[in-house]
């Protein structure tokens, strides 16, 4: 049996190559490590969504098998912990209600805020671990002068996950290790291979973990049916900004700002969703130019790496994970509200997504787009 005595670090192990490499690295350094896999969602719960032979989705038995196998290989204690209840309350339900409210939510950020860096930290405490480590591509540094932990982009630009981590608090950052932040994905794979990890060649997970094939509309329908919430009166009109009726739709939750496909309207120029109105059950469409916005408001803003600024701040602002970031001026309206004024108008500013502010590789903070 492995030595269960000293476990100062709890590693969140998903069964993927990233977190497996983190566990192996820390174990190799001789630091006491306990591996924990969070069971977040029962993939068999909504059988109509079951995908034959689907693997690599979160909490699948295959992933738990892989994580357990890695823990065995590197000789660390390992447990699966059941966070299904908290995940449903704090991630799935808000995800569903955001969609029904006509916004496009990011469940990964909620999961980070309330599960991975909150509930998981509690569990780490419970088993006596002071620190936690995850496979996120991000870095934490400490600004001695300001007495503040700072969040920085991962060295691998294409893998950087700080966009999803903007909600982290000082207390969370103080106890978190991101050992992969200084590495590129190919380096991580090479390291996993050299460490002989069974998951070295495993493919990356892509989509929202609890939504099979990225079909969130099907997930919403199945979940609401199971929980007994009727999707009543979801049908509505598709209109132009001027209010002209141009078609019908099956529910605003099928649409997101900037979407072009699935409108079912023949038009001379391409039509895009420019807004959704869940109260009137209307989807508003327009041309590409109608998607451009120069300004946005962010709520529930969390300042990570700096104190809430009293004067306007220049920053690069990302409004989607794959957005390159655009130059803007931030004006803090209050401690947790910011107005973002872009230098150039931005396409498809989508309510429910996050706006994350950067100064170079430093993640200053972020909030939810209204």
């Amino acid at each position, binding site marked *: 049996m492995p030595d269960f*005595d000293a*476990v100062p670090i709890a590693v969140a192990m998903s069964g993927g190559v990233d977190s497996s490499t983190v566990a192996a690295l820390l174990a190799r350094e001789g630091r006491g490590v306990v591996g924990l896999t969070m069971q977040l969602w029962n993939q068999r719960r909504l059988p109509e969504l079951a995908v034959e032979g689907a693997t690599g989705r979160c909490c699948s038995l295959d992933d738990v098998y892989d994580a357990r196998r890695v823990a065995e290989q590197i000789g660390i*204690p390992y*447990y*699966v912990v*059941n966070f299904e209840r908290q995940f449903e309350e704090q991630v799935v339900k808000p995800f569903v209600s955001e969609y029904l409210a006509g916004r496009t939510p990011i469940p990964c950020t909620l999961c980070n805020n309330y599960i991975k860096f909150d509930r998981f930290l509690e569990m780490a405490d419970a088993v006596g671990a002071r620190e936690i480590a995850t496979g996120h591509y991000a870095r934490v540094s400490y600004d001695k002068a300001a007495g503040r932990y700072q969040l920085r982009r991962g060295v691998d630009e294409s893998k950087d996950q700080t966009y999803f981590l903007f909600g982290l608090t000082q207390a969370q950052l103080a106890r978190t290790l991101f050992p992969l932040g200084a590495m590129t994905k190919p380096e991580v794979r090479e390291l996993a291979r050299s460490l002989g990890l069974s998951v070295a060649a495993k493919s990356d997970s892509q989509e929202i973990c609890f939504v099979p094939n990225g079909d969130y509309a099907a997930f919403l329908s199945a979940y609401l049916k199971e929980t007994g919430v009727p999707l009543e009166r979801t049908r509505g009109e598709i209109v132009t900004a001027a209010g002209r009726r141009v078609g019908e739709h099956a529910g605003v939750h099928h649409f997101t700002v900037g979407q072009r496909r699935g409108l079912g309207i023949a038009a001379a120029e391409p039509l895009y969703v420019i807004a959704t109105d869940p109260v009137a059950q209307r989807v508003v469409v327009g041309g590409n130019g109608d998607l451009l916005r120069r300004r946005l408001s962010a709520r529930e803003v969390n300042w990570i790496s700096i104190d809430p600024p009293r004067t306007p701040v220049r920053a690069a602002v990302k409004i989607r994970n794959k957005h390159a970031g655009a130059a803007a001026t931030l004006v803090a309206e209050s401690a947790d509200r910011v107005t973002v004024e872009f230098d150039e108008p931005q396409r498809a500013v989508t309510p429910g997504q996050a706006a994350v502010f950067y100064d170079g590789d430093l993640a200053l903070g972020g909030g939810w787009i209204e």
Partner: protein
Amino acid sequence: MQHVYLDHNATTPLAPEVLETMAACLGQVYGNASSIHRFGQDAKQRLEAARRQVAALIHGQPAEIVFTGGGTEADNLAVLGVVRAANRPSHVVTTAIEHPAVLAACAQLEREGVAVTRLAVGASGVVNPDEVRRALRPETVLVSVMHANNELGTVQPIAEIARIAHSAGVLLHVDGVQALGKIPVDVEALGADLYSMSAHKLYAPKGVGALYVRRGTKVAPLVWGGHQERERRPGTENVPGIAAFGKAAEIAGANLAADAARLGELRDRLEAAAMERISGVSVNGSRWNRTPNTSNLCFEGIDGEALVIALDLRGFAVSTGAACSSGAVAPSHVLTAIGLPPDRARASMRFSLGRDNTAAQVDGFIEALAGSVAHLRRISVHA
């Protein structure tokens, strides 16, 4: 680090004599018990000796013992076998605190068109026989009630339930997996028509069990093949495993009273110390009429899953709820059925003692338990 095992209701270690019996069989007795030659006869003799040993432990006849691949299979054979043999529109009465081996078999019967009544059980964790009487219907063919509950240890009023079932002409199946070796079992006195057993809860190996089937009781087989076990359980017999089960039954019978007295004292020592050292501790289910080795305690405001992991890291193996397929902890259907609110069910732990546990281990455990509970309450990991 010393590792102390306090989860004997999940499974038990092999008794040394059982290991010896099994090893001797594995090494030397390789004949097929159905073969005519002396190799086969040798195996057959071991098989029948084990049948006598198991029958003796429950005061049944050897011809009434059907060896199976474990307790789950025994439960399935009883529940599915009786109903399918009845071959008419049927109704089954069981309880909400049965093992999944019975509950899932009943769910399968429902899919096949059979009506099933699951009796509610109060906070005591003991079935009220009057509820059984009220649930009976003209088409009822089987009542299935466990002898002792796996999580609470509560012993059910089987003899009374048997009288009720029999007076209505209904068969009684008893899942005896958690009672065997812990309390006296006499299938005649109990009035059980079918009685399920598992070897690995009795210091014998996994993968072996038995179903007592009272002479004259019709049971349809689950699998089809040869004539073994009176055509109720086809397949070449697992002679080493069955011989080990027989040896374990013999040892259990010889030590039953002494083991029960010693384990009862240890369990009471554990409970008394837990309640003295830790605040907000209560016993789940009736404290009386329990299997002597089992204690199920609720630690107010604690997350049981965190406590199990913390204790394991300190070298003590205990359990909470039931494991789901990933190995994570799932809410206990037993604690929910006896009316515990979800937070109290999550704050509950099962301790099940066994033959090798000592007073010193229990005392060491209490230290670790008190320390872990205090730590969890300090950092307030809530259930």
